[in-house]
């Protein structure tokens, strides 16, 4: 679960070189949707100027306590402090083990704490639906981040990027680095979390029509050590595999580590998700060809603004401000998706530094 995904068009589409000997250079994109969101933040800030924010009590609930969400937390807290909210009115919660029941209990607990609104990356949208319904009935505003909440009372606005799209982009990148043919194995931390299943779906759909087949999908149960061992096992048992896709943030490094110790850096190509420091290191050294990244920072930051506005200005007024910035589907507020490769690595790192994430 440590990722979301992007809608903005990948700039990766057209790398021509596809010889199987030398890994083709993959072009990346790290522009996300920042300009757009920055304008929205400014508009909300203007609307909130001079208003009393003391009744605002908001929370951000993510789906697991993991590195990926660090940026989201930083963004959320930055958003709160930019709005002048006190820390006690700004709850950040990450289920320590990424369990559905942990998140459910927390949502119920939040309501009893008199929260006015929360942004949530639901582990399972259906199971959250009931609670969200009750919350919305009680005037609590709920903002879907990271993964949308279709069919719930919070379906009207979604801040994030669909996992499916992110998976597709990983698939596209894989097609490029493999030159359209080969065998691929996938390593993932959960077979049940929506973000994992959607990403793998997108990835597989993107490979349709090419000569690339997915020969094995392996679950490491959210354990980085298992991922390492599984990665090594995959390599040892699949000598003909030439592409690897690591879905969770630690899966990329685990695969890279395994490829490196098996001495197959030249023959096996890796596409991963997220931007662990280790992943970026492997991008630099060329072991990982590319990694699909999102901007959880923006989900936290803009999320805080939207929730505060919901409480202070009212839902309709807030929606009116947000409307011009939505995607064509009328409900998605894209936080962008990017592809980090050795080409745009430095640009991405500069961005992270600027936001105070790393």
């Amino acid at each position, binding site marked *: 679960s440590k990722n979301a995904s992007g809608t903005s068009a990948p700039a990766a589409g057209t790398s021509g070189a596809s010889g199987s000997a030398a890994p083709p250079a993959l072009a990346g994109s790290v522009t996300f949707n920042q300009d757009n969101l920055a304008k929205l933040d400014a508009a909300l800030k203007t609307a909130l100027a001079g208003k009393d924010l003391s009744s605002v009590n908001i929370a951000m609930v993510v789906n697991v*306590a993991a590195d990926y969400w660090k940026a989201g937390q930083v963004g959320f807290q930055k958003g709160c402090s930019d709005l002048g909210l006190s820390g*006690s009115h700004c*709850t*950040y*919660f*990450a289920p*320590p*083990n990424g*369990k*559905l*029941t942990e998140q*459910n*209990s*927390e949502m*119920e*607990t939040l*309501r*009893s*704490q*008199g929260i006015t609104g929360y942004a949530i990356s639901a582990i*399972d949208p*259906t*199971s959250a*639906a*009931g609670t969200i319904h009750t919350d919305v009935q009680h005037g609590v505003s709920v903002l879907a981040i990271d993964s949308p909440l279709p069919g719930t009372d919070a379906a009207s606005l979604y801040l994030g990027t669909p996992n499916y799209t992110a998976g597709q982009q990983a698939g596209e990148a894989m097609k490029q680095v493999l030159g359209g043919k080969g065998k691929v194995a996938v390593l993932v931390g*959960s*077979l*049940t*979390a929506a973000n994992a*299943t959607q990403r793998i779906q997108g990835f597989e759909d993107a490979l349709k029509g090419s000569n690339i087949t997915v020969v094995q999908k392996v679950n490491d149960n959210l354990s980085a050590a298992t991922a390492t061992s599984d990665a090594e096992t995959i390599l040892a048992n699949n000598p003909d595999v030439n592409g690897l896709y690591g879905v969770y943030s630690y899966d990329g490094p685990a695969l890279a580590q395994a490829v490196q110790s098996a001495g197959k850096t030249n023959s096996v190509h890796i596409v991963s998700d997220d931007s662990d420091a280790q992943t970026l290191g492997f991008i630099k050294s060329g072991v990982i060809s590319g990694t699909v990244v999102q901007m959880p920072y923006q989900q936290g930051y803009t999320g805080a603004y939207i929730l505060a506005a919901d409480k202070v200005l009212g839902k309709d007024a807030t929606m009116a401000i947000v409307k011009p910035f939505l995607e064509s589907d009328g409900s998605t507020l894209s936080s962008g998706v990017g592809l980090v490769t050795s080409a745009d690595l430095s640009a991405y790192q500069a961005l992270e530094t600027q936001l105070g994430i790393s």
Partner: protein
Amino acid sequence: MTVQSTLTPEEAPPRGQPAAARLLRKLAESPEAGVIVACVLVFAIIAANAPTYTSVGNLQVMGRDLAQVGILAVGESVVILTGGIDLSVGALAGLAGILTAWFNVNQGLPAPVAIVLTLVICAGVGLWHGTMVTRLNVPPFVITLVTYTVAQGLALAITTGTPINGIDPLFSNLSQYYIGRVPVPALFFLGAVAIAWFALERTYVGRQIYAVGGNREAARLAGIPVARRVTSAYVSSAVLAGVVGVLVIGRMNVADPSVGSGWELTAIAAAVVGGVSLFGGEGRMVGIAAGAILLEFIANGLLALHVNTYYQTVVQGAVLGAAILLDRLRARFFGRIQR
């Protein structure tokens, strides 16, 4: 024939204490006292620092939480009382939820039928455990670990990872309604505790379970049907796991295959914290319930106190540790003779 009895009972020693002091001492001596005191202390301390902790809403959340691990702890304890252990309860609860939803949604059975069918399957699993343990002498740890793995796997295999949606509203009615202001699942917890207490303390079958756990050979020679008692413990535990599974899908309104694994540890912890000996034969329902409640007080309290996520687990462990040390010190000063 004349025999002079040599057996005059010793007189009770003269006691200077007033009745109240004696009652207090008696309380302090009982093994359940420690965990109950710990419950009260933990609750009071958290309540003093987190105003929302004692709100009706939050108490309701705790009540619903208790219906999960709390009910599992009840079943687990019965097994532990016989000298066994049941590692499968968490995974089985998860599988039971999936099965019920699958019968209901994929097979189109009405909700009550789906529930009954699931509970029957769970009972079958318990029977299997009991048979393996009593007939083939398989260590309980091992056979229930196998079930744990298989149940977890089956939950995945049935769903291929995708949660089962669209379950009958009856399930959420079960789980999300209130009687007065008490959530129905919390009543299930109280009911399970009460029934287990009654069965263990007030029926001969219950007392026989204690005897079996205390000394299996002595129980056998005294004519107690040991195998049947042990098996019944595994069956109860498995059926209660099934009940938890049904309640959980109702609460979440979806059957998710990730539910349940890991709960067995919490259930065992609740039992042990509540004074159940892992060697069997010792421990009472009051303590077990208090153990489950203590763990819930702590887990929920840390959220209410807004303890930093990254520190929550540390604090949880530390509080648990403190509660246990307290109890040990109590036992040292007031306790009865230990084994």
